């Protein structure tokens, strides 16, 4: 039984497309990544799976339960952990009160261990916590009942790099214990580090599903070489070498076979050589026309509100604007 089976899932907000005809399967124990720029439909897909939005057409099962049936969805949610990137928490309650409440709703076998591991001070009012600490509160809530399926929507967007590492380790532990994961991100590195397969979302449609390995191999190798001779630019302008830069060191992206690379370098006296995986962004960008914002320029243009607003178009923008009045 797959953890998630998504069949032609489609959600329109009026005339605005959220997602369209999204089909994929997450196998039991698999970590599946949703990759795409803000507004591509990642959040819409996850919120539709959770039953927060009713699909315009299509369907899905979560842990064998029909996600579009309220009763079955509730049964599935017994074993699901959900972590949004910008969780809605009660500002004027303490982390302890909030987690007590969440524990009453879903159970809390691992709460203490998680609180200790992430160094969360439960006695503080959530409104007084930093963004990272608020995210920790939501993280504990999402993991404390040892769920079998984790739906993580841009989960690390508020965490510092150290905590991102700790978070990744936690996800891996849960997977080792048999959990399945759907993780969305607009940061390729995060997805590549955790996922087995990646679904690339583009304007609400699933543009491709690939294993991270395939994606990586398609990206080629980043080669940096220092040679004794005066390296002429045209010596490296061969098939398979891209993004060539010639200076004290020569660097390029190699998309051909290793043997051909060795043949190329054989003509020189190599003083220093570095061959590493090219950044996945380059392979990833082939799914877009090269001008789509987001994956290639990861830290730009995000205002911290998550991508829900962008994905839900006009009505959501209204609701956001009203947020301050509560």
């Amino acid at each position, binding site marked *: 039984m797959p953890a998630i089976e998504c069949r032609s899932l489609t959600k329109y*907000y009026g005339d605005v497309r959220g997602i369209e005809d999204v089909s994929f399967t997450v196998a039991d124990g698999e970590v599946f990544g949703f990759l795409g720029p803000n507004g591509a439909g990642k959040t819409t897909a996850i*919120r539709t799976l*959770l*039953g*927060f*939005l*009713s699909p315009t057409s299509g369907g899905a099962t979560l842990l064998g339960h029909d996600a579009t049936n*309220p*009763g079955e969805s*509730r*049964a599935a*949610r*017994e074993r*699901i*952990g*959900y972590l*949004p990137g*910008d*969780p*809605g*928490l*009660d500002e*004027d*309650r303490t982390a302890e*009160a909030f987690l*007590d*409440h*969440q*524990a*009453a*709703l*879903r*159970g*809390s*076998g691992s709460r203490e261990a998680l609180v200790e591991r992430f160094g969360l001070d439960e006695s503080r009012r959530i409104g007084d916590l930093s963004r990272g600490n608020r995210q920790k509160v*939501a993280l504990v*809530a*999402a993991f404390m009942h040892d769920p079998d399926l984790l*739906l993580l929507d841009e989960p690390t967007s508020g965490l510092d790099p150290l905590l991102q590492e700790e978070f990744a380790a936690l996800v891996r532990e849960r997977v080792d214990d048999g959990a399945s994961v759907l993780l969305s991100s607009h940061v390729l590195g995060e997805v590549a580090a955790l996922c087995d397969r990646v679904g690339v979302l583009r304007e609400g449609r699933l543009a491709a599903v690939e294993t991270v390995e395939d994606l990586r191999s398609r990206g080629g190798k980043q080669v940096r070489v220092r040679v004794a001779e005066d390296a002429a630019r045209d010596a490296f302008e061969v098939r398979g070498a891209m993004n060539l830069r010639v200076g004290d060191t020569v660097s390029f992206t190699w998309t051909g076979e290793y043997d051909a690379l060795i043949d190329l370098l054989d003509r020189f006296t190599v003083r220093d050589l570095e061959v590493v995986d090219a950044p996945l962004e380059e392979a990833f960008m082939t799914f877009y026309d090269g001008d789509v914002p987001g994956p290639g320029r990861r830290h730009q243009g995000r205002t911290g509100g998550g991508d*829900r607003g962008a994905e*839900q178009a006009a*009505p*959501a923008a*209204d*609701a*956001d604007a*009203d*947020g301050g*009045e*509560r």
Partner: protein
Amino acid sequence: MSDRSAPWLAIARYEAAGRARGSVVLTGLLSGFLLLFLAFFPSMSSAGIDLDAYVESFPPAFQEAFGIISISTIEGFLAVEFYQFAWLLLVGLYLAYLSGGTIAGDVASGRMDLTLSAPVARRDVVFGRFLGLVPLVVLLNAVLPIVAYVGVLAVGETIAVERLVAVHALAVPYHLCCVAIGIAVSTLVSRAGIAQRVALGGLFALFMFESLAASSEYDRAGSISPTAHYDPSAILVNAEYDVVGAAVLLAATAALVLLAVLRFRRADLAG
């Protein structure tokens, strides 16, 4: 798991706990307000002015709106100066406003996503949010009769305990109905701020309509307003207890909560 209770109960408890301080403060403020008015009574009643003749000269709609039957007795004075204004209008409007922000506010802030990612049914959220405001209603109507009784004695007057108890016991269905109006609006309007104003404005409009209708030939139309079924003046001055009105209010409360459940069950959480 042993630490889990029914979701609607867990939600109600959590919401009520979050409001505990505010509820106590509100109860204190209203108690102070009541005592302040009571302190005025001795000087008014000893001034030798025929206040009843004065208020009888008011237009009928005005008398209806403020439930004026008599103002010279302690019962009539309390009814007009406190219950008709603070209990019927102020507290009623405030409860509708509070509950109007509940579900719509949770959806808009994304809080609802976290609640509903747990194994919680939509109806549990509606029941829980409604019940979360019940302790406030109960607290107000349990504490204020005691404050009123002690206050009346303190100004050297006496009041029938039975009427004082009745004016609060019958206020409970009315206040619950005000909460239910807010809850229903909160599922109908997606923006919390708007939902609060619609709930508050709607209840006030119903009150105005009832006041005007009562002095016209369409007086029966006024009964669509919850305010038509709770009359503090009749209770305090004439010892008329409108039990049917209370039943109507409870039925309306149930219907409004049911409407909220039906509405929220189908709604997209388009926060």
